[in-house]
Protein backbone atom coordinates (compact mmCIF):
# COMPACT_ATOMS: atom_id res chain seq x y z
CA UNK A 1 0.00 0.00 0.00
CA UNK A 2 2.90 2.35 0.80
CA UNK A 3 3.97 2.42 -2.84
CA UNK A 4 0.42 3.37 -3.85
CA UNK A 5 0.38 6.36 -1.49
CA UNK A 6 3.86 7.44 -2.58
CA UNK A 7 2.87 7.30 -6.25
CA UNK A 8 -0.44 9.09 -5.68
CA UNK A 9 1.13 11.83 -3.57
CA UNK A 10 3.99 12.10 -6.06
CA UNK A 11 1.55 12.46 -8.93
CA UNK A 12 -0.37 15.23 -7.23
CA UNK A 13 2.79 17.11 -6.30
CA UNK A 14 4.58 16.52 -9.60
CA UNK A 15 1.64 17.29 -11.85
CA UNK A 16 -0.15 20.03 -10.00
CA UNK A 17 3.00 21.45 -8.47
CA UNK A 18 5.07 21.52 -11.67
CA UNK A 19 2.25 23.08 -13.66
CA UNK A 20 1.58 25.73 -10.99
CA UNK A 21 5.29 26.52 -10.56
CA UNK A 22 5.84 26.74 -14.31
CA UNK A 23 2.87 29.06 -14.75
CA UNK A 24 3.98 31.31 -11.86
CA UNK A 25 7.53 31.41 -13.22
CA UNK A 26 6.32 32.21 -16.72
CA UNK A 27 4.12 35.08 -15.56
CA UNK A 28 6.87 36.54 -13.34
CA UNK A 29 9.48 36.20 -16.11
CA UNK A 30 7.20 38.18 -18.42
CA UNK A 31 6.77 35.30 -20.87
CA UNK A 32 3.21 36.37 -21.66
CA UNK A 33 3.81 40.11 -21.86
CA UNK A 34 4.65 40.57 -25.52
CA UNK A 35 2.94 37.79 -27.43
CA UNK A 36 3.74 39.28 -30.81
CA UNK A 37 7.44 39.06 -30.06
CA UNK A 38 6.92 35.56 -28.72
CA UNK A 39 5.44 34.43 -32.03
CA UNK A 40 8.43 35.71 -33.98
CA UNK A 41 11.06 34.38 -31.55
CA UNK A 42 11.68 31.42 -33.87
CA UNK A 43 12.81 33.76 -36.65
CA UNK A 44 16.14 35.55 -36.82
CA UNK A 45 18.18 37.73 -39.13
CA UNK A 46 19.18 34.76 -41.27
CA UNK A 47 15.74 33.17 -41.46
CA UNK A 48 13.56 36.29 -41.13
CA UNK A 49 9.81 36.56 -41.26
CA UNK A 50 8.85 36.46 -44.92
CA UNK A 51 11.39 33.89 -46.05
CA UNK A 52 10.07 30.35 -46.50
CA UNK A 53 12.77 28.01 -45.24
CA UNK A 54 11.89 25.24 -47.66
CA UNK A 55 13.55 27.35 -50.32
CA UNK A 56 16.86 27.45 -48.53
CA UNK A 57 19.14 24.73 -49.60
CA UNK A 58 20.42 22.16 -47.18
CA UNK A 59 23.97 21.82 -48.46
CA UNK A 60 26.16 23.10 -45.67
CA UNK A 61 29.00 24.44 -47.82
CA UNK A 62 26.59 26.59 -49.82
CA UNK A 63 25.43 28.45 -46.75
CA UNK A 64 26.67 31.95 -46.10
Amino acid sequence: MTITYVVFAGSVILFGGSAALALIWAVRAGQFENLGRGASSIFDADEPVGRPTDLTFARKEDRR
Partner: protein
Amino acid sequence: MIGPPPLLEPSTATDAADRSFTETAARMARQRLAIDRSTSLPVLVYFASSIFWLLAGTVFAMISSIKMHAVWFLSSWEWLTFGRVRPVHQNIVAYGWASMAGIGTAIWLMARLSRSELLHAKWLVGSAVLWNLGVLLGTIAVLSGYNHGIEYLEFPAFVPPILASALILVSVWSLVVFHNRREPHVYVSQWYLFAAMIWFPWIYTAVNLLLVIYPIAGVAQGSITWWYGHNILGVWFTPIGLATIYYVLPKILGRPIYSYYLGVIGFWSLALFYNWNGAHHLIGGPLPEWLITVSIVASVMMVIPVGAVGINHHMTMRKHFKALKFSPSLRFIVFGGFAYTAVSLEGVLEAFRDVNLPTHFTHFVIAHAHLGLYGFYTMTMFGAMYYIMPRLTGWEWGSPRLISLHFWFCAIGILLMVVPLSYGGLLQGWSMLNPKIPFIDVVRRTANWMIIRSISGVLLTIGHILFTILFVRNLLHWGERRTSPTLLNPDREEYARTLAGAERLRAAGEAAGEIDGGSAR
Protein backbone atom coordinates in the same frame (compact mmCIF):
# COMPACT_ATOMS: atom_id res chain seq x y z
CA MET B 1 20.97 29.18 -58.80
CA ILE B 2 21.68 28.31 -55.21
CA GLY B 3 20.22 30.06 -52.18
CA PRO B 4 16.97 31.87 -51.66
CA PRO B 5 15.26 33.34 -54.73
CA PRO B 6 15.79 37.03 -55.55
CA LEU B 7 12.26 38.03 -54.61
CA LEU B 8 12.91 37.41 -50.94
CA GLU B 9 16.63 38.21 -50.82
CA PRO B 10 17.56 41.04 -48.43
CA SER B 11 18.64 44.11 -50.39
CA THR B 12 22.32 44.25 -51.31
CA ALA B 13 24.54 45.63 -48.58
CA THR B 14 25.02 49.22 -49.60
CA ASP B 15 25.01 51.03 -46.31
CA ALA B 16 26.27 50.31 -42.80
CA ALA B 17 22.90 49.12 -41.47
CA ASP B 18 22.57 46.56 -44.23
CA ARG B 19 26.11 45.36 -43.72
CA SER B 20 25.56 44.81 -40.02
CA PHE B 21 22.31 43.00 -40.85
CA THR B 22 24.17 40.64 -43.14
CA GLU B 23 26.80 40.06 -40.46
CA THR B 24 24.13 39.24 -37.88
CA ALA B 25 22.45 36.96 -40.37
CA ALA B 26 25.71 35.14 -41.02
CA ARG B 27 26.28 34.76 -37.28
CA MET B 28 22.77 33.37 -36.78
CA ALA B 29 23.27 30.95 -39.67
CA ARG B 30 26.52 29.68 -38.15
CA GLN B 31 24.89 29.31 -34.77
CA ARG B 32 21.99 27.33 -36.22
CA LEU B 33 24.38 25.08 -38.13
CA ALA B 34 26.37 24.39 -34.95
CA ILE B 35 23.17 23.56 -33.04
CA ASP B 36 21.91 21.24 -35.78
CA ARG B 37 25.29 19.56 -35.93
CA SER B 38 25.39 18.99 -32.17
CA THR B 39 22.06 17.14 -32.29
CA SER B 40 22.71 15.27 -35.49
CA LEU B 41 24.16 11.98 -34.15
CA PRO B 42 21.48 11.10 -31.55
CA VAL B 43 18.63 12.43 -33.68
CA LEU B 44 19.71 10.34 -36.67
CA VAL B 45 20.11 7.26 -34.48
CA TYR B 46 16.60 7.78 -33.07
CA PHE B 47 15.16 8.38 -36.55
CA ALA B 48 16.87 5.36 -38.09
CA SER B 49 15.66 3.14 -35.25
CA SER B 50 12.16 4.51 -35.58
CA ILE B 51 12.10 3.62 -39.28
CA PHE B 52 13.17 0.07 -38.45
CA TRP B 53 10.31 -0.23 -35.94
CA LEU B 54 7.90 1.39 -38.38
CA LEU B 55 8.56 -1.43 -40.83
CA ALA B 56 8.40 -4.11 -38.13
CA GLY B 57 5.16 -2.62 -36.77
CA THR B 58 3.70 -2.57 -40.27
CA VAL B 59 4.44 -6.27 -40.74
CA PHE B 60 2.68 -7.18 -37.49
CA ALA B 61 -0.18 -4.83 -38.38
CA MET B 62 -0.69 -6.60 -41.70
CA ILE B 63 -0.61 -10.04 -40.05
CA SER B 64 -3.20 -8.96 -37.44
CA SER B 65 -5.37 -7.30 -40.05
CA ILE B 66 -5.40 -10.29 -42.40
CA LYS B 67 -6.22 -12.63 -39.51
CA MET B 68 -9.42 -10.65 -38.92
CA HIS B 69 -10.92 -11.94 -42.17
CA ALA B 70 -8.79 -15.03 -42.83
CA VAL B 71 -8.50 -16.81 -39.49
CA TRP B 72 -6.38 -19.62 -40.93
CA PHE B 73 -3.61 -17.19 -41.89
CA LEU B 74 -0.34 -18.12 -40.10
CA SER B 75 -2.36 -19.70 -37.33
CA SER B 76 -0.28 -22.87 -37.02
CA TRP B 77 2.54 -21.09 -35.16
CA GLU B 78 1.66 -20.06 -31.63
CA TRP B 79 4.16 -17.15 -31.98
CA LEU B 80 1.99 -15.63 -34.68
CA THR B 81 -1.46 -16.08 -33.16
CA PHE B 82 -3.67 -13.00 -32.97
CA GLY B 83 -3.36 -12.67 -29.19
CA ARG B 84 0.40 -12.15 -29.55
CA VAL B 85 0.70 -10.38 -32.89
CA ARG B 86 -1.80 -7.65 -32.14
CA PRO B 87 -0.21 -6.39 -28.88
CA VAL B 88 3.20 -6.64 -30.54
CA HIS B 89 1.95 -4.38 -33.36
CA GLN B 90 0.57 -1.90 -30.86
CA ASN B 91 3.66 -1.83 -28.66
CA ILE B 92 6.09 -1.64 -31.55
CA VAL B 93 4.35 1.30 -33.19
CA ALA B 94 3.79 3.10 -29.87
CA TYR B 95 7.21 2.56 -28.26
CA GLY B 96 9.34 1.74 -31.29
CA TRP B 97 8.17 3.95 -34.13
CA ALA B 98 6.13 6.76 -32.58
CA SER B 99 8.19 7.30 -29.43
CA MET B 100 11.59 7.10 -31.11
CA ALA B 101 10.56 9.39 -33.97
CA GLY B 102 9.10 11.74 -31.37
CA ILE B 103 12.19 11.74 -29.14
CA GLY B 104 14.44 12.50 -32.12
CA THR B 105 12.20 15.38 -33.17
CA ALA B 106 11.88 16.64 -29.60
CA ILE B 107 15.66 16.74 -29.02
CA TRP B 108 16.18 18.67 -32.25
CA LEU B 109 13.31 21.07 -31.55
CA MET B 110 14.44 21.75 -28.00
CA ALA B 111 18.00 22.57 -29.12
CA ARG B 112 16.79 24.80 -31.94
CA LEU B 113 14.20 26.62 -29.85
CA SER B 114 16.60 27.19 -26.97
CA ARG B 115 19.30 28.19 -29.48
CA SER B 116 21.81 26.11 -27.53
CA GLU B 117 23.97 23.15 -28.50
CA LEU B 118 23.29 19.67 -27.24
CA LEU B 119 26.13 18.65 -24.90
CA HIS B 120 27.45 15.10 -24.41
CA ALA B 121 25.29 13.81 -27.24
CA LYS B 122 26.78 10.31 -26.90
CA TRP B 123 24.71 9.70 -23.79
CA LEU B 124 21.61 10.19 -25.86
CA VAL B 125 22.88 7.63 -28.34
CA GLY B 126 23.18 5.37 -25.31
CA SER B 127 19.56 6.10 -24.44
CA ALA B 128 18.53 5.15 -27.97
CA VAL B 129 20.42 1.84 -27.61
CA LEU B 130 18.65 1.21 -24.29
CA TRP B 131 15.30 2.10 -25.80
CA ASN B 132 15.82 -0.27 -28.75
CA LEU B 133 16.91 -3.02 -26.36
CA GLY B 134 13.77 -2.51 -24.25
CA VAL B 135 11.41 -2.65 -27.21
CA LEU B 136 13.23 -5.66 -28.70
CA LEU B 137 13.20 -7.67 -25.44
CA GLY B 138 9.56 -6.73 -24.83
CA THR B 139 8.60 -7.82 -28.34
CA ILE B 140 10.35 -11.17 -27.99
CA ALA B 141 8.70 -11.69 -24.61
CA VAL B 142 5.19 -10.92 -25.86
CA LEU B 143 5.71 -13.06 -28.97
CA SER B 144 6.78 -16.00 -26.83
CA GLY B 145 3.72 -15.63 -24.62
CA TYR B 146 4.85 -13.47 -21.68
CA ASN B 147 2.17 -10.84 -21.99
CA HIS B 148 1.36 -8.70 -19.00
CA GLY B 149 -2.21 -8.39 -20.24
CA ILE B 150 -2.83 -4.66 -19.76
CA GLU B 151 -3.27 -2.53 -22.84
CA TYR B 152 -0.14 -0.50 -23.78
CA LEU B 153 1.64 -2.24 -20.87
CA GLU B 154 1.95 -5.74 -22.31
CA PHE B 155 5.73 -5.80 -21.90
CA PRO B 156 6.76 -7.92 -18.87
CA ALA B 157 8.19 -6.35 -15.72
CA PHE B 158 11.86 -6.32 -16.77
CA VAL B 159 11.22 -3.98 -19.72
CA PRO B 160 9.78 -0.84 -18.04
CA PRO B 161 12.95 -0.11 -16.02
CA ILE B 162 14.98 -0.16 -19.26
CA LEU B 163 12.59 2.17 -21.09
CA ALA B 164 12.17 4.42 -18.05
CA SER B 165 15.92 4.93 -17.64
CA ALA B 166 16.26 5.79 -21.34
CA LEU B 167 13.34 8.20 -20.98
CA ILE B 168 14.89 9.89 -17.95
CA LEU B 169 18.18 10.37 -19.85
CA VAL B 170 16.31 12.05 -22.72
CA SER B 171 14.32 14.17 -20.31
CA VAL B 172 17.39 15.36 -18.35
CA TRP B 173 19.31 16.11 -21.54
CA SER B 174 16.54 18.18 -23.04
CA LEU B 175 16.11 20.13 -19.79
CA VAL B 176 19.87 20.82 -19.74
CA VAL B 177 19.64 22.13 -23.32
CA PHE B 178 16.82 24.39 -22.16
CA HIS B 179 18.82 25.51 -19.13
CA ASN B 180 21.70 26.60 -21.41
CA ARG B 181 19.33 28.57 -23.63
CA ARG B 182 20.37 31.71 -25.49
CA GLU B 183 16.79 32.54 -26.50
CA PRO B 184 15.04 34.20 -23.54
CA HIS B 185 11.52 33.55 -24.81
CA VAL B 186 9.94 30.14 -24.18
CA TYR B 187 8.16 29.37 -27.44
CA VAL B 188 4.81 27.56 -27.32
CA SER B 189 6.43 24.40 -28.77
CA GLN B 190 8.75 24.31 -25.78
CA TRP B 191 5.83 24.30 -23.36
CA TYR B 192 4.44 21.28 -25.17
CA LEU B 193 7.84 19.61 -25.03
CA PHE B 194 8.04 20.24 -21.27
CA ALA B 195 4.72 18.44 -20.89
CA ALA B 196 6.21 15.46 -22.71
CA MET B 197 9.61 15.56 -21.05
CA ILE B 198 8.56 16.22 -17.44
CA TRP B 199 5.18 14.56 -17.07
CA PHE B 200 5.47 11.49 -19.27
CA PRO B 201 8.54 9.91 -17.57
CA TRP B 202 6.70 10.19 -14.26
CA ILE B 203 3.44 8.81 -15.64
CA TYR B 204 5.27 5.90 -17.25
CA THR B 205 7.17 5.10 -14.05
CA ALA B 206 4.16 5.56 -11.76
CA VAL B 207 1.88 3.39 -13.85
CA ASN B 208 4.42 0.63 -14.20
CA LEU B 209 4.97 0.65 -10.43
CA LEU B 210 1.24 0.40 -9.77
CA LEU B 211 0.27 -2.07 -12.50
CA VAL B 212 3.29 -4.11 -13.51
CA ILE B 213 5.83 -4.19 -10.70
CA TYR B 214 3.62 -3.96 -7.57
CA PRO B 215 0.14 -4.47 -9.09
CA ILE B 216 -2.60 -2.95 -6.96
CA ALA B 217 -5.85 -4.84 -6.56
CA GLY B 218 -9.27 -4.62 -8.04
CA VAL B 219 -11.12 -2.11 -10.07
CA ALA B 220 -8.53 0.62 -9.43
CA GLN B 221 -6.37 -1.19 -12.01
CA GLY B 222 -8.86 -0.21 -14.68
CA SER B 223 -8.87 3.46 -13.84
CA ILE B 224 -5.06 3.58 -13.66
CA THR B 225 -4.76 1.66 -16.93
CA TRP B 226 -6.85 4.24 -18.74
CA TRP B 227 -5.28 7.15 -16.94
CA TYR B 228 -2.12 5.88 -18.63
CA GLY B 229 -3.78 4.78 -21.87
CA HIS B 230 -5.10 8.26 -22.45
CA ASN B 231 -2.09 10.12 -21.13
CA ILE B 232 0.40 8.36 -23.38
CA LEU B 233 -1.54 10.14 -26.15
CA GLY B 234 -2.26 13.29 -24.19
CA VAL B 235 1.10 14.12 -22.64
CA TRP B 236 3.46 12.22 -24.90
CA PHE B 237 2.40 11.90 -28.55
CA THR B 238 0.05 14.89 -28.79
CA PRO B 239 2.44 17.48 -27.30
CA ILE B 240 5.36 16.28 -29.43
CA GLY B 241 3.18 16.38 -32.55
CA LEU B 242 1.77 19.81 -31.76
CA ALA B 243 5.20 21.20 -30.81
CA THR B 244 6.41 20.06 -34.24
CA ILE B 245 3.51 21.71 -36.07
CA TYR B 246 3.88 24.94 -34.10
CA TYR B 247 7.53 25.17 -35.14
CA VAL B 248 7.76 23.67 -38.61
CA LEU B 249 4.61 25.20 -40.10
CA PRO B 250 5.57 28.87 -39.43
CA LYS B 251 9.18 28.19 -40.38
CA ILE B 252 8.25 26.69 -43.74
CA LEU B 253 5.87 29.52 -44.60
CA GLY B 254 8.18 32.16 -43.15
CA ARG B 255 5.34 33.76 -41.23
CA PRO B 256 4.61 33.70 -37.50
CA ILE B 257 1.73 31.70 -36.12
CA TYR B 258 -1.62 33.49 -36.57
CA SER B 259 -2.34 34.05 -32.90
CA TYR B 260 0.28 33.38 -30.30
CA TYR B 261 -2.36 34.14 -27.67
CA LEU B 262 -4.44 31.18 -28.86
CA GLY B 263 -1.29 29.06 -28.80
CA VAL B 264 -0.70 29.84 -25.13
CA ILE B 265 -4.38 29.27 -24.22
CA GLY B 266 -4.26 26.02 -26.17
CA PHE B 267 -1.30 24.68 -24.23
CA TRP B 268 -2.48 25.63 -20.76
CA SER B 269 -6.00 24.35 -21.32
CA LEU B 270 -4.57 21.07 -22.61
CA ALA B 271 -2.40 20.86 -19.48
CA LEU B 272 -5.46 21.46 -17.33
CA PHE B 273 -7.95 19.12 -18.99
CA TYR B 274 -6.18 16.25 -20.76
CA ASN B 275 -5.05 14.50 -17.61
CA TRP B 276 -8.66 13.91 -16.50
CA ASN B 277 -9.84 12.23 -19.69
CA GLY B 278 -8.83 8.62 -19.08
CA ALA B 279 -11.95 7.36 -17.33
CA HIS B 280 -14.13 8.01 -20.40
CA HIS B 281 -12.72 4.70 -21.68
CA LEU B 282 -14.60 3.02 -18.81
CA ILE B 283 -18.11 4.34 -19.41
CA GLY B 284 -20.47 1.61 -18.25
CA GLY B 285 -17.71 -0.01 -16.22
CA PRO B 286 -17.77 -0.78 -12.49
CA LEU B 287 -16.35 2.58 -11.43
CA PRO B 288 -17.76 5.37 -9.29
CA GLU B 289 -20.18 7.31 -11.44
CA TRP B 290 -18.69 10.70 -10.47
CA LEU B 291 -15.25 9.62 -11.74
CA ILE B 292 -16.64 8.87 -15.18
CA THR B 293 -18.80 12.01 -15.24
CA VAL B 294 -15.82 14.20 -14.33
CA SER B 295 -13.90 12.55 -17.13
CA ILE B 296 -16.68 13.21 -19.64
CA VAL B 297 -16.81 16.86 -18.60
CA ALA B 298 -13.03 17.15 -19.01
CA SER B 299 -13.28 15.46 -22.41
CA VAL B 300 -15.81 18.04 -23.55
CA MET B 301 -13.56 20.82 -22.22
CA MET B 302 -10.91 19.53 -24.67
CA VAL B 303 -12.85 21.49 -27.31
CA ILE B 304 -10.95 24.56 -26.03
CA PRO B 305 -7.35 23.42 -26.69
CA VAL B 306 -8.36 21.56 -29.85
CA GLY B 307 -10.28 24.54 -31.20
CA ALA B 308 -7.40 26.87 -30.36
CA VAL B 309 -4.89 24.69 -32.22
CA GLY B 310 -7.22 24.09 -35.16
CA ILE B 311 -8.07 27.77 -35.65
CA ASN B 312 -4.45 28.76 -35.23
CA HIS B 313 -3.13 26.33 -37.82
CA HIS B 314 -5.88 27.05 -40.28
CA MET B 315 -5.51 30.82 -40.02
CA THR B 316 -1.72 30.54 -40.37
CA MET B 317 -2.20 28.48 -43.53
CA ARG B 318 -4.96 30.80 -44.82
CA LYS B 319 -4.18 32.12 -48.32
CA HIS B 320 -1.03 29.96 -48.29
CA PHE B 321 -2.60 26.64 -49.20
CA LYS B 322 -0.97 26.84 -52.62
CA ALA B 323 2.34 26.20 -50.87
CA LEU B 324 1.16 22.60 -50.42
CA LYS B 325 1.91 22.16 -54.12
CA PHE B 326 5.61 22.60 -53.39
CA SER B 327 6.69 21.72 -49.88
CA PRO B 328 6.99 18.05 -48.90
CA SER B 329 7.04 18.66 -45.12
CA LEU B 330 4.14 21.09 -45.31
CA ARG B 331 1.89 18.52 -46.97
CA PHE B 332 2.41 15.98 -44.24
CA ILE B 333 2.24 18.55 -41.44
CA VAL B 334 -0.98 20.13 -42.71
CA PHE B 335 -2.55 16.70 -43.18
CA GLY B 336 -1.54 15.93 -39.60
CA GLY B 337 -3.01 19.21 -38.34
CA PHE B 338 -6.36 18.55 -39.99
CA ALA B 339 -6.42 14.99 -38.69
CA TYR B 340 -5.67 16.30 -35.18
CA THR B 341 -8.73 18.56 -35.24
CA ALA B 342 -10.89 15.78 -36.69
CA VAL B 343 -9.76 13.04 -34.33
CA SER B 344 -10.00 15.22 -31.24
CA LEU B 345 -13.52 16.43 -31.97
CA GLU B 346 -14.50 12.84 -32.75
CA GLY B 347 -12.98 11.86 -29.41
CA VAL B 348 -15.11 14.49 -27.64
CA LEU B 349 -18.22 13.01 -29.25
CA GLU B 350 -17.21 9.48 -28.29
CA ALA B 351 -16.99 10.52 -24.64
CA PHE B 352 -20.75 11.18 -24.51
CA ARG B 353 -22.61 8.22 -23.03
CA ASP B 354 -25.10 8.04 -25.91
CA VAL B 355 -22.39 7.94 -28.55
CA ASN B 356 -20.20 5.66 -26.47
CA LEU B 357 -22.93 3.03 -26.21
CA PRO B 358 -22.91 1.97 -29.89
CA THR B 359 -19.25 2.78 -30.64
CA HIS B 360 -17.41 1.24 -27.68
CA PHE B 361 -15.96 -2.27 -28.22
CA THR B 362 -16.37 -1.91 -32.00
CA HIS B 363 -14.04 -1.23 -34.89
CA PHE B 364 -15.07 2.42 -34.67
CA VAL B 365 -12.56 2.79 -31.84
CA ILE B 366 -9.81 1.19 -33.94
CA ALA B 367 -10.55 3.68 -36.73
CA HIS B 368 -10.43 6.52 -34.20
CA ALA B 369 -7.10 5.35 -32.78
CA HIS B 370 -5.56 5.16 -36.26
CA LEU B 371 -6.83 8.59 -37.23
CA GLY B 372 -5.04 9.90 -34.15
CA LEU B 373 -1.81 7.96 -34.05
CA TYR B 374 -1.45 7.70 -37.82
CA GLY B 375 -3.43 10.52 -39.47
CA PHE B 376 -2.22 13.09 -36.97
CA TYR B 377 0.93 11.85 -35.28
CA THR B 378 2.65 9.65 -37.85
CA MET B 379 1.97 12.04 -40.74
CA THR B 380 3.32 14.92 -38.62
CA MET B 381 6.46 12.90 -37.83
CA PHE B 382 6.98 12.19 -41.55
CA GLY B 383 6.68 15.92 -42.16
CA ALA B 384 9.14 16.65 -39.36
CA MET B 385 11.65 14.19 -40.80
CA TYR B 386 11.34 15.71 -44.27
CA TYR B 387 12.24 19.05 -42.70
CA ILE B 388 14.92 17.92 -40.24
CA MET B 389 16.87 15.24 -42.14
CA PRO B 390 18.46 17.44 -44.86
CA ARG B 391 19.49 19.91 -42.17
CA LEU B 392 21.33 17.16 -40.29
CA THR B 393 22.80 15.14 -43.14
CA GLY B 394 23.53 18.09 -45.43
CA TRP B 395 21.95 16.08 -48.23
CA GLU B 396 18.70 16.82 -50.02
CA TRP B 397 15.96 14.23 -50.44
CA GLY B 398 16.65 12.03 -53.43
CA SER B 399 13.41 12.12 -55.38
CA PRO B 400 10.39 14.46 -55.34
CA ARG B 401 8.41 11.78 -57.18
CA LEU B 402 8.98 9.22 -54.42
CA ILE B 403 8.04 11.80 -51.76
CA SER B 404 4.84 12.55 -53.60
CA LEU B 405 4.05 8.85 -53.94
CA HIS B 406 4.81 8.34 -50.25
CA PHE B 407 2.35 11.09 -49.38
CA TRP B 408 -0.46 9.81 -51.57
CA PHE B 409 -0.07 6.17 -50.53
CA CYS B 410 -0.16 7.15 -46.86
CA ALA B 411 -2.90 9.78 -47.18
CA ILE B 412 -5.23 7.58 -49.25
CA GLY B 413 -4.27 4.53 -47.20
CA ILE B 414 -5.20 6.09 -43.89
CA LEU B 415 -8.44 7.58 -45.22
CA LEU B 416 -9.36 4.21 -46.70
CA MET B 417 -8.75 2.69 -43.30
CA VAL B 418 -10.52 5.28 -41.16
CA VAL B 419 -13.66 6.12 -43.14
CA PRO B 420 -14.92 2.59 -44.00
CA LEU B 421 -13.82 1.19 -40.64
CA SER B 422 -15.72 3.93 -38.76
CA TYR B 423 -18.84 3.21 -40.78
CA GLY B 424 -18.40 -0.55 -40.39
CA GLY B 425 -17.82 -0.06 -36.67
CA LEU B 426 -21.05 1.90 -36.30
CA LEU B 427 -23.00 -0.82 -38.15
CA GLN B 428 -21.34 -3.40 -35.94
CA GLY B 429 -22.25 -1.46 -32.79
CA TRP B 430 -25.88 -0.97 -33.77
CA SER B 431 -26.22 -4.64 -34.73
CA MET B 432 -24.74 -5.76 -31.42
CA LEU B 433 -27.28 -3.61 -29.57
CA ASN B 434 -30.10 -5.37 -31.42
CA PRO B 435 -30.89 -8.58 -29.50
CA LYS B 436 -32.63 -10.08 -32.54
CA ILE B 437 -29.36 -10.32 -34.50
CA PRO B 438 -27.24 -13.34 -33.52
CA PHE B 439 -23.62 -12.49 -32.68
CA ILE B 440 -22.19 -14.62 -35.50
CA ASP B 441 -24.19 -12.55 -38.02
CA VAL B 442 -22.58 -9.40 -36.65
CA VAL B 443 -19.18 -11.00 -37.13
CA ARG B 444 -20.04 -11.98 -40.74
CA ARG B 445 -21.29 -8.47 -41.49
CA THR B 446 -18.04 -6.86 -40.35
CA ALA B 447 -15.85 -9.19 -42.46
CA ASN B 448 -16.06 -7.01 -45.58
CA TRP B 449 -14.88 -3.96 -43.68
CA MET B 450 -11.93 -6.01 -42.43
CA ILE B 451 -10.94 -6.79 -46.03
CA ILE B 452 -11.03 -3.08 -46.90
CA ARG B 453 -8.80 -2.45 -43.90
CA SER B 454 -6.26 -4.98 -45.16
CA ILE B 455 -6.28 -3.23 -48.56
CA SER B 456 -5.63 0.09 -46.87
CA GLY B 457 -2.82 -1.63 -44.96
CA VAL B 458 -1.20 -2.62 -48.24
CA LEU B 459 -1.23 1.04 -49.37
CA LEU B 460 0.32 2.14 -46.08
CA THR B 461 2.96 -0.59 -46.34
CA ILE B 462 3.95 0.62 -49.81
CA GLY B 463 4.16 4.17 -48.46
CA HIS B 464 6.44 3.04 -45.64
CA ILE B 465 8.73 1.15 -48.00
CA LEU B 466 9.00 4.23 -50.23
CA PHE B 467 9.85 6.38 -47.20
CA THR B 468 12.46 3.86 -46.05
CA ILE B 469 14.11 4.00 -49.48
CA LEU B 470 14.16 7.80 -49.34
CA PHE B 471 15.46 7.78 -45.77
CA VAL B 472 18.29 5.33 -46.43
CA ARG B 473 19.31 7.21 -49.58
CA ASN B 474 19.44 10.45 -47.62
CA LEU B 475 21.28 8.99 -44.65
CA LEU B 476 23.95 7.25 -46.74
CA HIS B 477 24.17 10.00 -49.39
CA TRP B 478 23.22 7.60 -52.17
CA GLY B 479 22.46 8.85 -55.63
CA GLU B 480 23.40 12.07 -57.31
CA ARG B 481 23.80 15.16 -55.14
CA ARG B 482 20.94 17.55 -55.84
CA THR B 483 21.81 21.17 -56.50
CA SER B 484 18.52 22.69 -55.38
CA PRO B 485 16.01 22.03 -52.61
CA THR B 486 13.80 19.03 -53.22
CA LEU B 487 10.36 20.45 -53.84
CA LEU B 488 7.37 18.53 -55.09
CA ASN B 489 6.98 21.04 -57.89
CA PRO B 490 10.42 21.99 -59.14
CA ASP B 491 9.55 25.57 -60.12
CA ARG B 492 11.07 27.46 -57.19
CA GLU B 493 10.38 30.87 -58.70
CA GLU B 494 6.70 30.01 -58.86
CA TYR B 495 6.80 28.90 -55.23
CA ALA B 496 8.36 32.20 -54.19
CA ARG B 497 5.82 34.14 -56.24
CA THR B 498 2.94 32.15 -54.73
CA LEU B 499 4.06 32.86 -51.19
CA ALA B 500 4.84 36.52 -51.85
CA GLY B 501 1.46 36.91 -53.54
CA ALA B 502 -0.27 35.27 -50.58
CA GLU B 503 1.56 37.60 -48.23
CA ARG B 504 0.49 40.66 -50.25
CA LEU B 505 -3.12 39.42 -50.29
CA ARG B 506 -3.04 38.93 -46.55
CA ALA B 507 -1.52 42.37 -45.94
CA ALA B 508 -4.19 43.94 -48.15
CA GLY B 509 -6.91 42.04 -46.30
CA GLU B 510 -5.48 43.15 -42.99
CA ALA B 511 -5.39 46.77 -44.13
CA ALA B 512 -9.02 46.49 -45.25
CA GLY B 513 -9.92 45.00 -41.87
CA GLU B 514 -10.94 41.65 -43.39
CA ILE B 515 -8.42 39.58 -41.51
CA ASP B 516 -7.36 40.23 -37.97
CA GLY B 517 -3.56 40.46 -37.91
CA GLY B 518 -3.07 37.85 -35.24
CA SER B 519 0.68 38.08 -34.89
CA ALA B 520 0.40 41.68 -33.68
CA ARG B 521 -1.42 40.58 -30.56
